[in-house]
């Protein structure tokens, strides 16, 4: 009975880790499309987001069924609550990758705007954050989870820099303002993506401590 429950918990954990990999892939593909101006591939990313939504549903259903069947308490209960929350964050992160793809389509394939290198830099930070969050989640390690706050600050700083740069550009390229806006939205989506990763870090802290500790301040 106990072993079955342990196995089920392990399976949910593996599903979440696999889900995180898929979300990372979605962001990598979306940013690649942006730089390549690949509108067709961007369309596929939008379609594929439905699969990420299904992942969330699957994990939620498994976790809720286990709560009902095993009536877990204490850390076991938190493990399942945290699984539900992380699945929701990953799904939202997938949405932000999809939003990047949507903005790429809005920009079209000959917008003539140079995409700042910092967007790729933001993507790299965001991916690093996902890896950190999943290591913290796997080992239920609060010191690793706490590192996310600093990395997220780096992401926020880069976002601030990109927006400032784009604002300056829009002042001298008023006819391209629509396109410049789209690029700043993209930076915003990646910044929000990072916020959800810090939520995952907070979930790991909650799992261990049994109380909410913010990493977003």
């Amino acid at each position, binding site marked *: 009975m106990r072993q079955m429950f342990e196995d089920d918990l392990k399976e949910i954990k593996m599903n979440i880790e696999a889900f995180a990999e898929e979300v990372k892939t979605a962001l990598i593909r979306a940013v690649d499309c942006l730089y390549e101006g690949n509108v067709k591939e961007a369309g596929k990313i939008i379609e594929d987001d439905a699969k990420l939504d299904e992942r969330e549903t699957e994990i939620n259903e498994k976790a809720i069924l286990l709560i009902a069947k095993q009536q877990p*308490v*204490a850390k076991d*209960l938190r493990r399942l609550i945290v699984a539900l929350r992380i699945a929701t964050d990953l799904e939202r992160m997938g949405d932000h990758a999809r939003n990047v793809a949507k903005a790429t389509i809005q920009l079209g394939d000959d917008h003539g705007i140079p995409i700042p290198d910092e967007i790729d830099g933001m993507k790299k930070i965001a991916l690093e954050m996902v890896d950190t969050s999943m290591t913290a989640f796997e080992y239920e390690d609060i010191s690793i989870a706490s590192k996310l706050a600093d990395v997220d600050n780096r992401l926020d700083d880069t976002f601030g820099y990109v927006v400032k740069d784009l604002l300056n550009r829009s002042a001298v390229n008023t006819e391209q303002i629509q396109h410049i806006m789209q690029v700043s939205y993209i930076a915003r989506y990646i910044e929000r993506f990072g916020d959800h990763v810090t939520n995952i870090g907070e979930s790991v802290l909650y799992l261990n401590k049994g109380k909410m500790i913010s990493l977003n301040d």
Partner: protein
Amino acid sequence: MIEMQNKAQTPKNQSTEKKTEKVPNIYEVDDLNLWYGNDQALYEINMDIPQYQVTAIIGPSGCGKSTFLKTLNRMVEMVPIVKTTGAIRYGDQNIYEDKYRVEDLRTKVGMVFQKPNPFPKSVYDNVAYGPRIHGIKDKKTLDQIVEKSLKGAAIWDELKDRLDENAFGLSGGQQQRVCIARALAVEPDVILMDEPTSALDPISTAKVEELIQELKKDYSIVIVTHNMQQAARISDRTAFFLNGELVEYQETDQLFQNPEDKRTEDYITGRFG
């Protein structure tokens, strides 16, 4: 006395006392040890039991929880080889002092057992049994006590037209509530319950659990239960016993969400026991 209270509030392995509105204690257990012959069954128990609350005792079989419950009304003395040290204060008296009259204690402390144990008598006679022993003979007074007790045990509406029937003919859940009514009839302060729902079906269990919530307005309740969800649902404080030791004693919400002791966590999450 003050020194004893301080001691009792910080039992072994319990570091902090959370969100305490100070409730008066009905019992204060101080350094209680108990042996069955040469075998020690309880070790240095320090525990305050608050008035008008439900205190649950959980732990694996053989951990001493039923033994502990039976120390609270000195029923444990029915085993002749039992020896105890330490004190249990009820009100301002140590119930283990030689001069303490156990009869006084039993009047104030009612008990309900795992298996419903009505007498082979009518419902009415079951409930009127205690008051009659205490010398009440007046029919009208007895009628009132029986009605009040059955109402208190949330079974009056079901049984008011069946008071003359033999209690053995009732369902298990009804029998158990009649036993609770029988305990209430002598107007105790405390009700001890030893796994009161383990022989009942889920519907009867729910009724008894609801009843416990009602009863705590007027009585202090100590319940031993194997059903951890039940402890979580109905109790205000929970004590976890293991191998005769009180491992952790906490607000129930705290104990089931975030226990302080690893052994408590392992037990409530089903990793042993």
